[in-house]
């Protein structure tokens, strides 16, 4: 019952989003801005699978995101690929990055995992910063947005087109996310978050599951990064910086880590909120920081998480009285012990 309600709500959200540009026109929000919200949500899904479901604080998500943007950009600039291939190569770049750092990350958990992912993320940041011949360095790298050639879709991609491509990929991303978390694989990730030792003592190689989790996060982050690069026609090193990673973690927590639509809710609030506040005051980072703190102190489960909790409490279940120690069994046990007792 609850599952069906969730599916209907999710479909409703997707339907509403399909009318994005039209709604945006009414409330005076740029279509490209809406695209940014959706692709940010995709990146946050990468954080969610590791942080929300597996319990691993990934601080290098921005590096994978940035690799996606640079992967797309470099392939357009140097290999003159089309729209679709640019996205695929962006994802590939993020996967390669993840495969390089995964062996180091897999040996650790908890805070140390976070610290290592932060440090390795910075390696990629410095590479993007330093190797300016290739990446354009601090000033970033601009590139064209190639036309798309995929079946019936042909031609240049304008902002509305960009939105619908992003929307389609978001829909695929969220459905695949849902499928992953309800699969045995996803359930095992949740078990790892609960008690990794017990998962191992049930015969499962937890490292293998975590590795795939990291790769899934890389696919989401790389896809989002590639879309971002294509949206802006630009990639720059700060995309890979750990502050960006912190933003992704905040919006995941804000929306509700461990929920399916949490990243979207968090992305909406974060991206739109940041934009609104920064037009009011240049000191918007104080609000961002304050938000972080307020969320952590008062709101750790985030919006959807807290709603989920409230709904669970509201549900009254009649529990049958459990007979865990049936009287007959006790007597039998006692008798056995007495008869076996040593002389």
């Amino acid at each position: 019952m609850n599952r069906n309600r969730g599916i209907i709500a999710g479909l409703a959200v997707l339907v509403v989003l399909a009318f994005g540009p039209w709604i945006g026109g009414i409330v005076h929000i740029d279509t490209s801005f809406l695209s940014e919200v959706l692709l940010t949500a995709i990146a946050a899904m990468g954080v969610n699978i590791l942080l929300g479901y597996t319990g691993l604080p990934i601080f290098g998500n921005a590096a994978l995101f940035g690799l996606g943007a640079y992967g797309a950009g470099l392939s357009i600039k140097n290999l003159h690929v089309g729209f679709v291939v640019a996205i695929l190569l962006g994802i590939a770049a993020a996967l390669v990055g993840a495969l390089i750092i995964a062996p180091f990350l897999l040996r650790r958990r908890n805070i140390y995992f976070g610290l290592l992912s932060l440090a390795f993320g910075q390696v990629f940041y410095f590479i993007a910063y330093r190797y300016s011949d290739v990446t354009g360095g601090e000033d970033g790298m601009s590139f064209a947005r190639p036309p798309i050639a995929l079946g019936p879709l042909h031609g240049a991609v304008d902002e509305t087109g960009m939105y619908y491509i992003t929307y389609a990929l978001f829909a695929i991303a969220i459905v695949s996310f849902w499928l992953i978390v309800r699969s045995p694989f996803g359930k095992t990730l949740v078990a790892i978050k609960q008690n990794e030792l017990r998962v191992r003592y049930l015969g499962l190689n937890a490292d293998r599951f975590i590795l795939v989790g990291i790769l899934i996060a890389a696919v989401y982050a790389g896809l989002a990064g590639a879309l971002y690069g294509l949206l802006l026609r630009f990639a720059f090193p700060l995309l890979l910086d750990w502050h960006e990673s912190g933003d992704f973690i905040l919006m995941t927590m804000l929306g509700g880590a461990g929920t399916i639509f949490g990243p979207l809710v968090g992305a909406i609030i974060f991206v739109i909120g940041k934009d609104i506040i920064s037009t009011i005051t240049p000191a918007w980072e104080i609000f961002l920081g304050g938000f972080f703190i307020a969320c952590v102190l008062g709101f750790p489960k985030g919006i959807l998480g807290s709603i989920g909790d409230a709904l669970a409490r509201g549900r009254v279940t009649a529990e049958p009285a459990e007979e865990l120690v049936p009287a007959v069994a006790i007597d039998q046990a006692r008798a056995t012990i007495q008869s076996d007792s040593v002389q």
Partner: protein
Amino acid sequence: MSDALLIADAVSKKFGGVQAVDRVSIEVGRGSIHAVIGPNGAGKTTFFNTLSGFFFPDSGTVRFDGADITNEPNWRRIGRGMSRTFQTPSIFPDLSVHQNLLIGTQAKRGVAFRLTLPNAKQRDEIEARVDELLGFVGLAAAKSRTVSELSHGSQRLVEIAMSLSTDPKLVLLDEPMAGLAEAETDRVISVIRDLHDRLGLTVLFVEHNMRVVLSLAHRITVLDRGRLLAEGSPAEIAADVAVRDAYLGKEVIEHV
């Protein structure tokens, strides 16, 4: 002896400056209930940990069902037929009893590492197995309860059921009675006995409660300060003076 399911030979483990386990050997006979006892600090749990792969020994070997598993990762040992419970029940606290058992059952059938759901036939078989495990420990009524809400004794039973979900040959139980109330203790004792009597499993357990040990075990290994002190049948151990000394201290004996 090929009759022995688990053989540890001169296993040693040192932590910092402390020799926690010092050349301890054990042979657990197939289909027996074997207990490991000893006063506090004797190294029982450390020894257990080397047997189950929680960590690896500094020296010595561990053989299970004929194979050398001394340095094998713990999750592989489960595949060979070993399983284990911990002093504090190691379960998935926020999940339901049903979900707790599902993980191991799915793992055993090789469907854990899949993104696709098992087909209807597999699902039915898995659910049937989960129900069977629940029935064995008498927790069928608690199937949809969250494990953290259960009593300590029930959590222990869930853990034992989980350790059975991987179809083990040998079950290692680390102080299964720890923290249990009287009534719960009797229930767990009968379940442990059933592991052997009804399921034909080999059981190796660590325990403090001498009454329980003497009534359940076929064979007893006694450790003291990391060393093997004595080994034998319950009658032999109960009569062993060195064992009494280790537990009670020489002064008390002299005053008796």
